């Protein structure tokens, strides 16, 4: 019960079971307000489950979730969510999708549209405001999703492998754009990925989860790479390589263990 003041999200001994299957067990995790924290772990270990718990989309089987010191019941109203899968409203245009959050919150149509247009420009989609998601590339859809979750200016952003479906180059651009947004308007970010390089390049702290079932936090690593970071070159910096080797040694064991359990 310490440091709750500065914690945007705190998981207190959280266990989540799906019927007889225990996905995560006894997880303690504290995310400092304004921090960018990455969660890595083998596939199926419970990363999405962790984010869904923080979002209030599912409730813990045991333990409790706190948001800015208050225990969470129902949806986390201070958080935005970028989903692993495509989650845009297919029947709304780019403009309609980006303005949706404001409209839901009762912002007047005119103003919502004006602010959505600003975001369209910010994520580089000028000229596509009247396009439907089906007419966009995967990278463009992710840009829409990013603008959609940022426009309502949530204090916390939960991101579930948002870029994992993109090619390497598009991904690098999106990561840079994300860091720019985050620098311009600092929010607490909980960023799930299976890619350790991505986690390292973006985060202040990397949390490694163990292989499922009954996944737990194996270790947490502070990432002391200076900011602003230039993602194009960061992977070749010696300090990055050191950190990578160090954390990978741990993550590798979990990945191997998850292979064993699968076979």
């Amino acid at each position: 019960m310490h440091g709750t003041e500065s914690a945007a999200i705190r998981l207190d001994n959280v266990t989540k079971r799906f019927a007889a299957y225990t996905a995560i067990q006894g997880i303690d995790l504290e995310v400092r307000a304004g921090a960018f924290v990455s969660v890595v772990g083998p596939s199926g270990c419970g990363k999405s489950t962790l984010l869904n718990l923080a979002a209030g989309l599912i409730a813990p089987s045991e333990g409790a979730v706190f948001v800015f010191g208050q225990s969470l019941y129902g949806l986390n109203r201070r958080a935005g969510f970028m989903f692993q899968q495509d989650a845009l409203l297919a029947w709304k245009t780019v403009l309609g999708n980006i303005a949706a959050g404001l409209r839901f919150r009762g912002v007047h149509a005119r103003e919502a549209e004006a602010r959505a247009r600003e975001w369209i420009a910010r994520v580089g989609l000028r000229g596509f405001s009247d396009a439907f998601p089906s007419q966009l590339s995967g990278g463009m859809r992710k840009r829409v999703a990013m603008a959609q979750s940022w426009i309502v200016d949530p204090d916390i952003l939960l991101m579930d492998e948002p870029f994992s479906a993109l090619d390497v180059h598009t991904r690098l651009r999106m990561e840079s754009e994300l860091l720019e947004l985050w620098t311009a308007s600092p929010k607490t970010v909980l960023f799930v990925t299976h890619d350790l390089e991505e986690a390292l390049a973006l985060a202040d702290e990397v949390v490694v989860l163990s292989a499922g079932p009954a996944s737990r936090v194996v270790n947490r690593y502070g990432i002391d790479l200076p900011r602003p970071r230039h993602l194009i070159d960061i992977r070749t910096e010696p300090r990055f390589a050191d950190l990578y080797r160090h954390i990978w040694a741990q993550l590798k064991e979990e990945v191997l263990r998850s292979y064993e359990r699968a076979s």
Partner: protein
Amino acid sequence: MNERASRRLPIAVWQALLGAALLGSWQALVNAGKLDKFFFSRPSDVAARIVEWLKTGFIWPHLAVTLEEAALAFTIGAASGVVCGFGLARAPRLGALVDPYIRLLNALPRVVLAPIFLLWFGLGIWSKIALGVTVVFFIVFFNTHQGVRDVDPVVVNNARMLGASEWQLVRHVLIPSALTWVFSSLHISIGFAMIAVVVGEYLGSARGVGYLISQAEGVFDTTGVFAGMAVLSAVVLLVGWGVNRLERWLLRWKA
């Protein structure tokens, strides 16, 4: 688009030729006495009859009645189908309770309902509309039901995280998702609405295209029967074409 149009043109020509060949051989066979004119009429006679109907304006009131019945049947059937499909999908326990009865009703051949509706609603337009409604309702009902249950839970969660209230969720996510299914069955349900009201007219009425056909049949006027059928087909095709355009516009967000 241009390329497609230029590739389309020849097939349209072929289609016209096929039609001309069929009608031509029909005409020739009757003229040669191989087919009895009394039973088979003749394309030229049918065409002349249609022209006469159009010239004297005899056909319009009948056509107007049929279209009015079909439009009302469609509107009432679709609206009640959307509401019930939606309601039962949102209230799964109630849905499970009434599910076998809905299937039971849907299994009924509609034609057998026509005499009952005649008794209940009389010879006027409402007995035909009722028949049309029983067809349209079930098509729209099942599609709406499926559409609501088919909605991607991730999209629902996204809308909720963006701050959507229960009603906004219905309005911005569930209804559009369900309407996709309803629209994609629009031309089927409109076509069936037309057929159902014509059957209703045929079985008992004083106006409408179905009435025309049954009257002609009553006096062994095969030309009149064929002319009625031709008018009906042309109208159904025309309406179907319009609905197709509408559907393409409404679902323009689909890939």
